[in-house]
């Protein structure tokens, strides 16, 4: 976290000169100096950093240079859109990725599996934005079934505005979510398959077969649980990937989320927004990692008791 805060802070210090972005060419030198003072840009660097940390902890990231509004308000507006998109994509990726992975591992020589695998490789090779463009071209431009941009109507639940309560909202989220989730789906599919094949080759699976256990019990009782242990880590890492690629998806679909905010901020060197985004994103990464670690302990009993050290003779 601290590292990210430092990066974000460094960013705000060295990336361009915000003053020239905020004021026009015709501003006088005095105006600029006054603004500098007001923003605290003349203080020593460590002081600025401490202030930055303190402000960030309170959720205060300053004022957007471009939009002239407090960053936290902008984020609060945009956060629900991105989180909804990421959540729907993640559910989509897991709900299809894991079962398909298991299927292709168990029936690895059937033509259906080979077909799924070939398709999945295409999925890996299809860059997110290309997929988005294709979907828009087919379903919005040609068939006109789906909206090509935006979230559709949203409903406010306190500070959270959701698009998931209306049919149009769902219609709007399907294409972005598929776009964002497909790459992760293929990754999860291939990972589950590889892990499952690995587990199915182990001695304890062979021993389970030798005890006459039913296939169902072996595949879903014994093999699956061992398969999921590494899958949890990768899925955790992939939540980060989803957040990163939401930038791309939001750009393609003009989805009013944080990613779009960020990429616009990058183009305008709107530093407060950029650093706020980074801090928030890394906060999410850290939380996801924590959850992954906890899940790990729940799934794997070996981590619950003290580690046994293997010895060398």
């Amino acid at each position, binding site marked *: 976290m601290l590292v990210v805060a430092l990066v974000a802070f460094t960013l705000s210090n060295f990336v361009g000169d915000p003053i020239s972005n905020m004021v026009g060419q015709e501003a006088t030198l005095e105006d600029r100096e006054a603004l500098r003072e007001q923003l605290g840009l003349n203080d020593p660097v460590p002081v600025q950093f401490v202030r930055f940390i303190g402000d960030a902890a309170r959720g205060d990231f300053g004022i957007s240079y471009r939009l002239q509004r407090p960053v936290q308000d902008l984020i609060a507006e945009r956060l629900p859109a991105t989180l909804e998109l990421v959540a729907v994509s993640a559910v989509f990726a897991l709900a299809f990725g894991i079962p398909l992975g298991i299927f292709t591992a168990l029936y690895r020589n059937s033509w259906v599996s080979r077909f799924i695998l070939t398709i999945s490789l295409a999925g890996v090779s299809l860059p997110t934005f290309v997929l988005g463009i294709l979907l828009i071209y087919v379903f919005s431009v040609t068939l006109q079934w789906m909206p090509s941009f935006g979230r559709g109507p949203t409903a406010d639940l306190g500070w959270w505005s959701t698009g998931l309560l209306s049919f149009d909202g769902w219609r709007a989220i399907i294409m972005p979510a598929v776009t964002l989730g497909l790459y992760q789906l293929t990754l999860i599919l291939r990972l589950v398959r590889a892990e499952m094949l690995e587990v199915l080759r*182990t*001695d*304890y699976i*062979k*021993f*389970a*077969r*030798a*005890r*006459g*256990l*039913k*296939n169902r*019990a072996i595949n879903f*009782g*014994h093999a699956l*649980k*061992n398969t999921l*242990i590494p899958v949890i880590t990768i899925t955790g890492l992939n939540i980060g990937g989803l957040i990163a690629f939401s930038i791309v998806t939001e750009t393609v679909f003009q989805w009013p989320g944080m990613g779009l905010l960020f990429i616009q901020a990058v183009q305008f060197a709107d530093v407060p927004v950029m650093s706020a985004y980074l801090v928030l994103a890394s906060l999410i990464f850290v939380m996801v990692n924590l959850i992954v670690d906890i899940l790990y302990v729940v*799934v*794997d*009993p*070996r981590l619950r*008791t003290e580690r*046994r050290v293997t010895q060398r003779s």
Partner: protein
Amino acid sequence: MVALLKVKNLRVEIPTRRELLVPVDDVSFEIAPGEILGVVGESGAGKSLTGAAVIGLLEPPGRVGAGEIHLGNRRIDNLPYREIRKIRGREIGMIFQDPLTSLNPVYTIGRQLIETLQTHQDLTQSQAKARAIELLQEVGIPAAAERINQYPHQFSGGMRQRVVISLALANNPKLIIADEPTTALDVSVQAQIIKLLKRLAADHGAAVMLVSHDMGVIAETCDRVAVMYAGRIVEIGEVHNVVERPNHPYTQGLMAAIPRLGGKDETLAHIKGSMPRPNAIPNGCAFHPRCPHRFKPCDRDRPDLMKGQGSEAACWLLQKEKANV
């Protein structure tokens, strides 16, 4: 006595991209109820594949290419999956080499035992649990009632192998196939596991097929022994006959190559060369290129098992003697 297990002309094939490998060929043997048969051989002899073929667990693309396997009155090598599954664990139990990897690390040993019991027997959860504790006690695990809730990694190597044995014996199988059950263990633990295995087989009246590379383990444990070389049985007979008066030149070489405790400083007798790879098994008697006694027929015709002194061996030398008499 009627044999419990009858293996007739078993042939195991593994098709590869380049050729058809035949790592086990024309293997026949019988095991009587309560008998312990040792299958001994060096790596690549096909002894483990023979064991796997009996219980129907050859790894694809390996398959039984020819021959028959009978358990009791029933032929079991051509059964559909549903039927052979019911035999595994119920009528044939199997023990693998490495106790560290034979148990599923994410489930308690109790769960694995109970699952095995309930798969084959109509038991309630509490009945199965009670039986599981009994089984653990039987294999010599102290404080079984508490340890049943522990995970495999909480057991030592020897204790884990005891758990593996209790799992294999859970449903009182008539036949136990033990594939190198002590190879991964220290000598002192090995001695205990062998003793346990012998005692349990006797108590349960089960027949045992003990696959091992260690002639010492076989000699201590078994009633009869089959010596395998390059996928075939080259000699079979009572253990003491095979150990003391081996008929096949390979068995003779093998026995002479084993260093004896406190033996004198003499050079060990040794067989030249090594076991052929399964894609290069010589014609005729597979052992002939290494055999010090080979003569005319050896590189042409494959010898069948023939009656010798004490044991049967697949060697033309026996035929020659008979012919000469």
